[in-house]
């Protein structure tokens, strides 16, 4: 079994080969509209209702969206991205629906088709629009409901559908399953890195992602080193290791719930006290903030991202980092779902500073940070390639402005996207991982 890290080129080839033409399920137009409406009805609640009834149509959200900024295409205004949802809400669920109905167009299958591009290609759910709205509307949440509707109507883009089906039916992702994890664990064992695989009971359960296993096994190894150094009582399960959740990426609730359930059930069975998410933005969002809601009850364990864990271990004295003396400068790219949507912003910086690195901030940072352009699984979509690259250019310019020697990030998806963007534009600033940097600076 090949346990070497896949090259970026091979990964890109693999993505390229994913078909963008796989026919979805066979549904009539009426069925699609009905299913979209059902999906909308499932997700509309008091919060979304208040949001939609507050929108001023001021258009400021466009000024926050990297896709609008990169193209000046007004269709990419975030408020427009959930327009069919608003029409549905007004016509069928808003308090004054009887008044609005005669004046509001019903949604059509043509609308849903048209919105597929806006919602999947031109939106990563980064939530920057949430931050600018003077009314405090959670625009990204409404766009997420749009995804849900499009998924229900069978309009998930082909590439995403492929990996969704794979995760749902085979419990693998990009062909990465238990066998691949075991092979990697074995290989790390030969390098002196111990990974306690498949323990029945443990305090800490680590997760990983297919991308980590394929492209960034060093990040996985780094996590193992950190945990071992901190003396944690930990494990990783070959039957519940995949932190990535294609359900949230596509807007497919059953898959979303299923992927979460697999992990939570196993963590409960192992008596886990702390669940650790690897370098992945949406994994943190899914487990830390949405897991309990998916399961219908509070989680019986804490969910921590690696930066939080590392910072806590340093504070407790169980981890020490060697300050670097070369005064290298870095800038930290905040993954949207870890920072703006997750609340983990300070710990990565503290950890980097603890290693003596000169941490420089991009003009837009922390909760206002620019999306890498490829988050939320968008990197698989060929139809989004051009937009992604344009959004990446904005991020690239921000990083260049800092003059930092390297960019560090805490999400494998961001990392891949930054690397692909760099390759496309001939950018030579190194893209590195937080955990790998920490693992390389662990004091004895």
């Amino acid at each position, binding site marked *: 079994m090949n346990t070497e890290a896949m090259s970026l080129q091979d990964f890109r080839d693999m993505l390229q080969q994913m078909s963008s033409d796989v026919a979805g399920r066979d549904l009539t137009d009426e069925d699609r509209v009905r*299913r979209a409406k*059902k*999906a909308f*009805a*499932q997700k*509309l*609640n008091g919060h979304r209702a208040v949001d939609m009834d507050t929108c001023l149509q001021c258009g400021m959200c466009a000024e926050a969206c990297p896709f609008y900024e990169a193209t000046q295409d007004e269709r990419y205004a975030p408020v427009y991205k959930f327009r069919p949802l608003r029409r549905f809400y007004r016509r*069928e*669920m*808003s*308090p*004054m*629906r009887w008044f609005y109905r005669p004046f509001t167009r019903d949604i059509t299958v043509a609308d849903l088709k048209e919105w597929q591009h806006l919602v999947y290609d031109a939106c990563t759910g980064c939530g920057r629009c949430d931050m600018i709205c003077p009314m405090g509307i959670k625009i990204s949440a409404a766009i997420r409901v749009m995804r849900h509707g499009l998924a229900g109507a069978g309009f998930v883009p082909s590439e995403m559908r492929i990996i969704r089906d794979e995760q749902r039916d085979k419990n693998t992702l990009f062909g990465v399953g238990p066998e691949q994890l075991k092979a990697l664990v074995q290989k790390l064992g030969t390098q002196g890195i111990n990974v306690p695989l498949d323990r029945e009971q443990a305090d800490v359960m680590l997760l990983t992602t297919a991308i980590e296993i394929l492209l960034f096994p060093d990040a996985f190894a780094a996590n193992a080193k950190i945990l071992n150094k901190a003396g944690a009582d930990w494990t990783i399960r070959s039957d519940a290791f995949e932190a990535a959740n294609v359900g949230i990426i596509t807007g497919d*609730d*059953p898959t979303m719930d299923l992927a979460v359930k697999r992990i939570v059930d196993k963590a409960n069975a192992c008596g886990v006290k702390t669940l650790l998410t690897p370098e992945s933005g949406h994994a943190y969002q899914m487990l830390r903030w949405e897991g309990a809601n998916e399961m219908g009850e509070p989680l019986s364990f804490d969910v921590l991202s690696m930066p939080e864990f590392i910072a806590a271990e340093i504070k407790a004295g169980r981890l020490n980092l060697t300050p670097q003396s070369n005064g290298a400068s870095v800038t930290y790219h905040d993954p949207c779902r870890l920072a703006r949507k997750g609340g983990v912003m300070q710990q990565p910086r503290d950890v980097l500073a603890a290693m003596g690195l000169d941490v420089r901030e991009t003009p837009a940072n922390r909760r206002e940070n620019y999306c890498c352009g490829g988050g939320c699984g968008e990197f698989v979509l060929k139809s989004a390639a051009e937009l992604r690259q344009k959004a990446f250019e904005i991020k690239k310019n921000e990083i260049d402005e800092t003059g930092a020697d390297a960019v560090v990030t805490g999400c494998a998806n961001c990392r891949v996207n930054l690397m692909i963007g760099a390759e496309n534009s001939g950018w030579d600033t190194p893209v590195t991982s937080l955990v790998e940097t920490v693992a390389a600076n662990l004091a004895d």
Partner: protein
Amino acid sequence: MRNDQFLGEYLRMQGVSRRGFLKFCSATASLMALPPSAVGQVAEALATARRPSVIWLSFQECTGCTESLTRSHAPTVESLIFDAISLDYHHTLQAASGYGAEEARMAAMEENAGKYLLVVDGSIPLGNPGFSTIAGISNLDMLKETAENAFAIIAVGTCAAFGGLPRANPNPTGAVSVSDIITDKPIINVSGCPPIPVVITGVLAHFLTFGTIPELDALGRPAAFFGQNIHDRCYRRPFYERGQFAETFDDEGARKGWCLYKLGCKGPTTYNACATLKWNGGTSFPIQSGHGCLGCSEPNFWDKGGFYDPLSAGMWGSRDALLGAAAAGAALGVGSALAARSRKKKAQAAEEV
């Protein structure tokens, strides 16, 4: 004075000097907003005018209009006018009474058919003719009868012009104005409660001078006196603009003579000459004396909100109705939300793959 005698002749006989007569003519001219050059025309017209017959009918009234008109302490414009007309019938002022008085009225009507002026004060009750009668004749009948051959009608006071106090909610007597009953004669509404005396005499003077009805506004009032509202001519207007208001009748603002808008002054929507001509020979007018304008020259002024409620408070009704509206809205809101939630539940229950 005989009816066929010229007024000029009559005045001379009364001892009014030429100079006094011309003074009267210039005062009259300026009252009617005529230029100084018109004084000669007024003098000529009045000198050669014949004293017209005037029949004054008093219906549901308080006699305030007559009181206003006759309050004079010395020879004034008002009294001269009385000398200029032949007041052939007036309950308060006439010497005759009983059948004699009614006969005088009928005689005047016959002799001056088509030429006499009918002055009316007080409203006319339509609810029951018995509410107000004169010599056993109902107000309605007497008005119709007397108006038939009149040249024109002057409705003096807000009661005659618009119905006035008796017409106020709930109008128990079914009171109406003169113009509600007579529709085929020219009517000049000289409203006010009471009207300013010189306004009444000014109308008469115009009639004497030109033999015609003066220019009227949309409510039939002489535009010369009712063409501008109190607010625009009020000397306290600068305080309104600067936002200095009396909040109570005895506070610092009241004592300093600040604007009375907050205390219910209806000046902005009231048209009359009070702010310029004033009362009691130009002594004062309500606002100057520290009380807001009641709007007494306007129709329905008794029912246009309280006298002490500011104009902009509106007459929109009760606050309780609004509480009811909120309750109704909340109920509908809950109902619509519950219906939406049930749809949501149904959508969540049926999960297709």
